[in-house]
């Protein structure tokens, strides 16, 4: 599987993401935000966590207008896979590739801790390494992670089984305890918790391995 990780000014989980993808067996390249094209033959683009462009205006808003994001949108529209974690999730909602928006945490505090997540569906390349109902532990580290969407969008997400992960104990006020959502074609996943920070025993847990391993298995066979 060929993967690339976007690097924005202010990204800080880009190398963690690359390490997690490489550990799962992917061939990984880094791409700079000013690049107007993605590498040829790319299977997965990962949009990492961090504070792209200093979170100016709104988290992810400036990044979503960068040249590389136009290429990410084109990649997804061609049927390519994309994974956005934390700030990457915010960027993907700002591009319109995923529905809803991420708002300031209900408690107004930056939250940095391990949280329990329930795998809400195993029906995606990202979650097929789990069983629906599995409870996993991933770190969260965000100030603006409260997922919101209008009632119609929420009903669509629920009706189409597009909620990938929910919080076992809602830390940030997210609508419906939503921690991660899938696109309509199930090839784009955005999530606030960090699976790439849970892939090595040194991280304190390895629950994220199944996400990257499952993705590799799916995309390598595709």
């Amino acid at each position, binding site marked *: 599987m060929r993967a690339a990780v976007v690097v924005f000014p202010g990204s800080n989980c880009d190398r963690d993401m690359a390490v997690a993808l490489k550990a799962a067996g992917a061939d990984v390249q880094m791409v700079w935000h000013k690049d107007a094209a993605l590498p040829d033959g790319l299977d997965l683009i990962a949009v990492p966590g961090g504070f792209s462009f200093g979170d100016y205006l*709104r988290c992810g808003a400036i990044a979503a207008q960068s040249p590389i994001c136009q290429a990410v949108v084109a990649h997804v529209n061609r049927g390519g896979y994309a994974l956005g974690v934390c700030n990457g999730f915010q960027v993907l909602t700002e591009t319109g590739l995923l*529905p809803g928006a991420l708002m300031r945490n*209900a408690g107004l505090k930056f939250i940095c801790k391990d949280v329990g997540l329930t795998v809400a569906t195993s029906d995606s390349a990202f979650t097929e390494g789990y069983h629906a109902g599995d409870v996993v532990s991933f770190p969260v580290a965000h100030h603006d992670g409260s997922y919101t969407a209008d009632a119609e969008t929420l009903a669509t997400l629920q009706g189409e089984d597009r909620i990938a992960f929910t919080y076992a104990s809602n830390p940030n006020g997210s609508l419906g305890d939503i921690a991660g959502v899938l696109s309509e074609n199930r090839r784009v996943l955005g999530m606030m918790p960090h699976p790439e920070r849970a892939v090595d025993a040194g991280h304190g847990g390895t629950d994220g391995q199944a996400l990257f391993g499952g993705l590799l298995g799916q995309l390598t066979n595709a």
Partner: protein
Amino acid sequence: MKARVHVMLKNGVLDPQGAAIQHALGSLGFSGVEAVRQGKVIELDLADGTTEATIAQMCDKLLANVVIESYKIEVL
């Protein structure tokens, strides 16, 4: 020409920062503050003749996230 764009969370979208400000005003002894909403103001210096429709495009594409925010354009 100048324009000022007011961006606010849509009605019905919970505003935890507004709620915190309301609480703090109460702590300071200001009674009767029934609700607080926090937004942002963006001032633009524009070429003369820029149309309100163009400013609206700026709002839709970047200045506001219309999923959760509404905006009001004030041409000065």
